[in-house]
C-alpha cells in the first residue's frame, strides 16, 4: 500500500468522522469524535511527511496533535459539558438527510477538484476533494444544526478542511504559518465557547432560533 493510497484512505475516514461530529446529539460526544477526526488528520500529516520527505509536516502534525486532538476537545468537553438544552438538540436536518447532503457535497467537491491541473498533487486529488468537501461539511453543520455548540464544531470542521488543503498544496510552508493557523483555531474556539456560556447563562437557551437580535 503506497503512501498516497494511505493518505486518500485516511481522507475518506475524515468524511466519516465529520459526519459523526455533525450527527451525534450531545456536544460532548461531538467533542470526542472531533478529537478522533483530528487524530486522523494528524495521521495524514505524518504519512505525507514520510511519503514526501517533507520535514516541516512533522512539526505540523505535532502542533496539530497538541491543539486539535488534545486542547480543543478537552476545552470543549469541560466547558460545554455542563450546558444542556434538549430543545436545541432536536430538529435541524435529520441524520439520513445530513448523510445524503454530505454525499452530494463530496461528489460536487470531487467534480470541482477534477478540474485542478497541478502535477504535484496529481495522485492526491481524492484527498484534495475531501479537504474541500470537509470545509463545506463544516458549513453544512453550521447551517443545519440548531444548537449553537454544534456550530462551534462546524467552525472546527471548516478549520480542519482548510488545514488539510493547506497541507496538500503548501506542505513546504514555514512553521510560522502553521502555528498561526493552530493558535488561531484555539483562540477562536475559546472565544466562541465563552460566548456560548454567556448566552446560555443569560438566556438559558442554546437554540439558534431564539437568537435573532441581529435582525434589523
Amino acid at each position, binding site marked *: 500500500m503506497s503512501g498516497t493510497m494511505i493518505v486518500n484512505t485516511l481522507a475518506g475516514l475524515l468524511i466519516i468522522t465529520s459526519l459523526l461530529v455533525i450527527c451525534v446529539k450531545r456536544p460532548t460526544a461531538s467533542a470526542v469524535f472531533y478529537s478522533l477526526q483530528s487524530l486522523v488528520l494528524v495521521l495524514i500529516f505524518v504519512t505525507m511527511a514520510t511519503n514526501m520527505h517533507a520535514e516541516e509536516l512533522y512539526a505540523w502534525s505535532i502542533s496539530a496533535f497538541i491543539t486539535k486532538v488534545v486542547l480543543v476537545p478537552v476545552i470543549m468537553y469541560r466547558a460545554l459539558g455542563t450546558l444542556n438544552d434538549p430543545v436545541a438538540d432536536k430538529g435541524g436536518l435529520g441524520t439520513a438527510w445530513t448523510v445524503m447532503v454530505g454525499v452530494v457535497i463530496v461528489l460536487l467537491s470531487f467534480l470541482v477538484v477534477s478540474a485542478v491541473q497541478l502535477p504535484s498533487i496529481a495522485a492526491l486529488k481524492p484527498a484534495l476533494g475531501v479537504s474541500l468537501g470537509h470545509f463545506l461539511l463544516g458549513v453544512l453543520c453550521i447551517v443545519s444544526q440548531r444548537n449553537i455548540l454544534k456550530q462551534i464544531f462546524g467552525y472546527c470542521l471548516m478549520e480542519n478542511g482548510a488545514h488539510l488543503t493547506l497541507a496538500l498544496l503548501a506542505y513546504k510552508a514555514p512553521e510560522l504559518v502553521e502555528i498561526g493557523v493552530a493558535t488561531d483555531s484555539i483562540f477562536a474556539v475559546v472565544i466562541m465557547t465563552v460566548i456560548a456560556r454567556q448566552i446560555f447563562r443569560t438566556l438559558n437557551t442554546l437554540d*439558534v*432560533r431564539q437568537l435573532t437580535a*441581529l435582525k434589523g
Partner: protein
Amino acid sequence: MSMSPLDLLLLSVGLYATGAILSLLLAGNDEKAISVSGVLGALGGVAGLAAALPVLISGTGKTVTFATCFSFADFVVRFDLLGAFMVAVISLMVVATSVYSLSYVREYVGRGAWAMGLYMNLFVASMVCLVVVDNAFWFLVFFEMMSLASYFLVIFDQHEEAVSAGFQYFLIAHAGSILILIAFFILYSKSGSLNFETFRHLSLAPWQASIVFLLAFFGFGAKAGMIPLHGWLPRAHPAAPSHGSALMSGVMVKIGVFGIIKVGVDLLGAHELWWGIVVLGFGAVSSVLGVMYALVQHDIKRLLAYHTVENVGIILMGVGAGMIGMATHHPVLAAVGLLAGLYHLLNHAVFKGLLFLGAGSILFRTHTKDMEELGGLAKRMPYTAVAFLIGAMAISALPPLNGFVSEWFTYQSLFTMSHDGIFVLRLAGPIAIVMLAITGALAAMCFIKVYGLSFSGLPRSAHAEHAKEAPWPMVVAMLFLAAVAILLGLGASVVSPVLVNVAGSLTQLGAVPQVAYQSLLMPGNPGQAIVSTPMIILLLLVGVVVALIIAESGKSVRMSRRHGGDSWACGYTQESHMVVSADSFAGPLKKNFAPLFNLREQLNPGPMLNSGVARSIRAAERAEPFWDAVLVAPVLKFVPWLGRQAQKLQHGDFRIYCLYVVAALVILLLVTVLC
C-alpha cells in the same frame, strides 16, 4: 458761466441722485436725511426747470448720443419740446413736494424716513431720465426703476392694506411693462435697432402699427390709471405718503399719458383714425366713471385718487382729439387737441399735487383721512384751507383758474371735431362733449362735498377739534402750487402759445395755429370762440365790488348784529348728526347711477387678477394629484417594498448570514474561475 440746458438737466439728475445716495448713507439719522433729501430734491427741481424752460421758450431741442458697451443700448438723450415739457412738469412738482417733505416726513422719523428720501429721489430721477431718453432699452430700464421706487413708496407703511395695494400695483404695472416690451420688440424686429429715431422712420403695415399702438396704449394706460386698468390707483395712491401721492398722482400717471403720446403720436405718427377714437373713448369713459366713483368716497386721499382717473380721462380726450386731427390732416384740430391734453396734464399735476399736499396736511394734523371725522378745519388751518379751496376750484374747472383753461381747450377741440369731421366724428364729438360736461358738473359737486365736509361746519371729532395749522414748509409748498394754479389760469395767453408749439412739434402738420392774441385765448379760429381769463377775473371782481358798494351804502340802515344764536333747525335744537355727511351728500347720486357703480366691481382687474391667481392655484391643485399618482406614489410604494425585501435578507438567524458569506465566496470564486 452759462450752462446749456443739457448741462442743467444733468445737474438736476445729479442732484436727485446725490440726494438719494446721501439719504442712504444717512440711514439711521432720519432728521439729517430728511433735510438733505428735501433740499437736494428742491434744488434738483429748480435745475430741471432752468433746463426745460429755455428749450420750451426757444422751441428748439437737442439730441446727444453716448455709445455704451452694448451696441443695442446707445444712451440717446433727446431733449426735445415734449421731453422738456415733461421735465418742466416733473421739476415744478418736485420743487413743491421736496419743500413739503421737509416737515411732512418728520412724521416718519424713527420709521425709516431716510429710506423715503432715497426712494423719492430715485423715483424722480428715473422719471426725468425716462422722458428724455430716446432708446427703448433705457426707456424700459427707467420705466422699471420708476415702478419699483414707487412700489416701495406705496408699501412704506407696511400695514396690510398698503402691502396688498402695493402688490396689486406691482402686478398691474408689470403687466403693462410686458405689453410695452412687446410693442418695442415688434418695432425692434422691423428696424433692427432700439433707438427711437429708427422707429420714427419705420414704415409699418397698418395692421402692424395698430398692434404696436394697442399694446403701447394698454401698457401705458395701465400706468396712467385709465378705466378699466385703474384698479390699483385708488388703493396705491392713498397708501403712499402724501407728497409721494402728489408725485404719483400728479406726475407718474402722466408718464403713462406721455408714453401713449410718445408711441402713438411721436413714433407711429397717429396715422389711423380709429386710434384717436379709441383714445377719446377710453378717456371719456374714464372721466365720467372716475368722477362718479370719487363722489362716494369717505377717504379724502382715495377720493383724490379717483379724481386722477377722471382727469387722466380728460387729458386722454384732448390727446384723442389731437390724434384724430393728425389722422384726418386737420392741423388746427391736431394742435388744439394736443394742446388741450398737454395743458390739462400740466394743470392736473399742479392742482392734484396741491390737493394731495392739502390732504397730507390734514392727515399730518388730524391723523385721519376719513372726511366724516373732519369739519371746521378752515378756522384751525386757514392757509391750508385757502390753498385747498384754490385747488378745489381749479379741479372743478372754475374760471379763471387753470383747470378751466385746459378744459375750455378740450371743449374747443371737440367742437372743432364735431363741426369739421366726417360722420363718425360728428357723432363721437357731441357724445364726448356731453360726457365732459357731466364730468365737470360732478367734479364741482364732489369738491363742494370735500371742502364743505372737511373745512366748513363744526369739527366732528377730537382730532379735528384740536388741529393746528401745518408747519411753514408745508404751507409754503401749498401756497406755491396755489399761486402756480392761478398763474397758469391768468397767464394762459402766455402759456398756451408755448404749449401749442410743443403740440406742433409732435403733429408735424406745418404752421401751428394761433391760440392766443394778447390776453385772448382762441382755438385757432377766433370765429369759433374767444375767452380772456383776466377779463373774467375783472368781471368777477366787479361783482364783489358792487356787493361791497351796496353793503357800504346800506350801512346806516343795516339791522343790528343777527348771528348770535344757534343755527335755525326748523324749531329743533341743532345737533351734530343733522350735519350733512359724506354719505348723505352723495346718496342720491349713488342711487341714480347704481348700475355704473356696479360696473366698477366688474371692471376692476384687481379681483379678476386675484380670481385668476386663485383659478391657477386650483388648477395646480388638480394637476398636482395627477403627477402624484403617476410619479410620486409608485416611488413611494416601491421604496418601502424594496425595504421590506431587503429586510428579508436580515433574517436574524445567524446561520443565514454564514450562508451569505459562503455564497459570496462561491460567487467570487466562480467569477475568478470563469473570467
